[in-house]
């Protein structure tokens, strides 16, 4: 009973996800087709890893608006290194992730040690990283080629891509960190009541630095996945991605006020958003109506969550 109650968060949205799948399968005969599944899974990895980072930032009552731009900066860095400098692909991917880490660490240092609001700092980084991405790529999309595309293609014998496997690994690690480690407990405490955490001897600053740096690094990893998916480095990639990540986290039961959130829930949130998008496209809903419905779903999710908070069990 306790276990059920503890996982109520996840159970509830998993149920929503299943309902959504059933709903689209009922409306559209070929929703369960291999092509649909492939389309959905291929979109997933970048949004998934970015959402994991976002969820951790939201749990400590922060926000990271820069993830979309950092993702594109990481992708363009990889593009230039591979095409222009002929750096080996694995090294270039690592450089992309480190670029993201550097952006995130800069965010984190400004927020934690200079006490600037995360909203403003990451808004500034959103602009700066996007500008840098254009500068790095000369505002052009750089074609990288099939070498990087291998990351996004299904592995023979496994059926899913390396990117998806890594993304699922990141979700598992994030979930473990939040549920089982002392560090995760401290993040929850800081987000829930920073003053009380301080009086329990927990210093919020290194924690804040860590989550924002991690969010940056995961956005960098998202850049790798994005470049792999497209086969090229696009400086326009990831525009508005921060909003999708926040939406996925919130649908997954994460509070924007901090102190409450689930990495696993956020992943299901990603699935819900992706399936909603594909499902609506499948049944022939126009792009404007898709956006209308997606927005309504996000607000309904928060309303439902608020209602469940007031009426536990």
């Amino acid at each position, binding site marked *: 009973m306790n276990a059920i109650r503890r996982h109520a968060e996840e159970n509830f949205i998993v149920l929503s996800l299943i309902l959504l799948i059933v709903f689209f399968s009922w409306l559209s005969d070929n929703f369960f087709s291999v092509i649909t599944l492939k389309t959905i899974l291929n979109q997933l990895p970048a949004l998934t890893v970015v959402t994991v980072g976002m969820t951790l930032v939201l749990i400590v009552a922060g926000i990271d608006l820069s993830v979309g731009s950092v993702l594109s900066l990481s992708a363009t860095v990889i593009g230039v290194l591979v095409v222009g400098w002929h750096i080996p692909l694995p090294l270039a991917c690592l450089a992309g992730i480190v670029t993201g880490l550097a952006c995130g660490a800069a965010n984190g240092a400004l927020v934690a040690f200079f006490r600037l609001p995360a909203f403003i700092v990451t808004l500034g980084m959103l602009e700066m990283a996007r500008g840098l991405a254009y500068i790095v790529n000369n505002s052009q999309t750089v074609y990288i080629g099939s070498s990087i595309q291998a990351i996004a293609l299904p592995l023979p014998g496994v059926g899913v891509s390396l990117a998806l496997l890594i993304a699922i690994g990141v979700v598992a690690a994030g979930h473990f960190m939040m549920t089982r480690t002392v560090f995760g407990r401290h993040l929850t*405490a800081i987000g829930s009541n920073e003053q009380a955490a301080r009086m329990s*001897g927990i210093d919020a600053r290194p924690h804040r630095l860590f989550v924002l740096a991690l969010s940056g690094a995961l956005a960098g990893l998202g850049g790798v996945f994005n470049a792999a998916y497209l086969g090229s480095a696009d400086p326009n990639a990831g525009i508005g991605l921060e909003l999708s990540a926040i939406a996925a986290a919130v649908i997954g039961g994460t509070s924007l006020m901090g102190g409450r959130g689930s990495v696993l829930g956020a992943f299901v949130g990603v699935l819900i958003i992706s399936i909603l998008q594909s499902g609506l496209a499948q049944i022939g809903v126009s792009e404007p109506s898709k956006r209308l419905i997606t927005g309504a779903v996000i607000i309904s999710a928060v309303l439902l969550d608020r209602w469940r908070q007031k009426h536990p069990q």
Partner: protein
Amino acid sequence: MKDLRLSIRNLNKSYNVPVLKNVNLSIGRGEIHAIVGENGAGKSTLINVLTGLTPRDSGSIFLDGESYEPDSAGDGFAAGVSFTSQELSIVESLTVAENIFLRQLPRRHAIVDKSALHAAARALLDRVGLDYVATDSRAASLSLADRQLLEFAKAINAECRLLLLDEPTAALTEQQADRVHAVIREIAAQGVGVIYISHRLDDVLGVSDSVTVLRDGAVISTTAADSSSAADLVSLMTGGGVIRPRDLAATDAASRPALVVENMCTANLPDSVNLTCHEGEIVGIAGLAGSGKSELLRAMFRLDLLHSGQVIRHIKSETVQIQSARHAVRNGIGFLGENRQTMGIFPGQGVLTNMMLPDILRSAACTVDATVEKTVAKQLGKRLAIRYNSLQQDIRELSGGNQQKVLIARWLNAGSAVLLLDEPTRGVDVGTKQAIYELLFELRSNGNAIVIASSETDELMTVCDRILVLSNRHLVAEFNRGLWSEEEILSASFSAYTDNTMSEMSQSEGVQ
């Protein structure tokens, strides 16, 4: 009855425990009526009920013979009830003039009439003795004393029938207070009824016509001011200084120091403080609200910046100089803040998470052993008789007393040998209070060192080996168990407020 400004009949108010009990009070036109009492006697609650900030439970209030039932401060203002609050209600980002007229800015159509605003503000500032403050300066630039005068100017700005003053002179020098008193008399002379609350008993007797003593929410006496003395009032406030004897077994470890504070000064504690708490000893910190009790405990836990001095933890033969709150926790010091909601609980988190936090901070392992954690939490819950449905239950669903027990359990679990407790029984029912006392005795006999700040003198007299008294941020007296009386402690608490030089010192310290 006709010439009564205010008449209160059988007023009751309780938050879990009764705060005001069958209060009856009458104030005539032009009467200055002082209300005195210890902390928690119900003075501020009475003011809050009259302003409309707090709803009453039962009883009736008549203003000029008409029933007065305010639902909000707005209703109060509309009925002609004006007040100064102990927590100053100054908006720092606005100008001095805008603060005074916040409720009704002079306007031409929808546009603020600046010249009228500044002219009216100038007159009011000059009246209360703020002639050196420009009407267009930001309120943020004012010292604490100036802010208090600004709050007073704000209250007397509106046309009112009843003026409620809650500690209007707490931060003022004698000269400034005299000025305020003169203005109060002028206002009363126009027929306004005034309720005046102050810790400065000499001022109370000097300015008011009559004095009501509140104790534990009940009216003890109402007398004419010229037939009362400060000593009479203190005696009435304490109920004659009843000592509740309780023998505490001497603990053999009592000679070993556990926590030593040497020459400590902070922004809020101008005098250097020296204090030693021994193993197996409970040291009490007494003092009125705002006397620096919380600030002392915060500084000892290294939450506030020390201007000088040090906090040293003795562990067996070793000594450690405490550098930060984190360092304090690591060296076995626990801290219970005065405000459970903002400083203690993690809202939205379960009982378990709330209880286990500092322990996992101390553990070397990185992961949490869910089974061990649960077992320990259950044991602690049983030991402190905490009432909860499940360990996952949101802490906010627990009663105040049970929340407090969870927070104490947090530090027991952390194995803290030194506990700094700020108002540990605030807002806690009588049964839990007793349970907390018993727990403190048990910890004491186990050799824990405990420093407890409380505004309830009888609580300190029940649990402490020693009581230190803070008055106006200065350590003024120390009493040993058995050699104290409530009256002595209380008059020590008041001592630094009546002394002119002391007030001036606190004035010059001010707020930057």
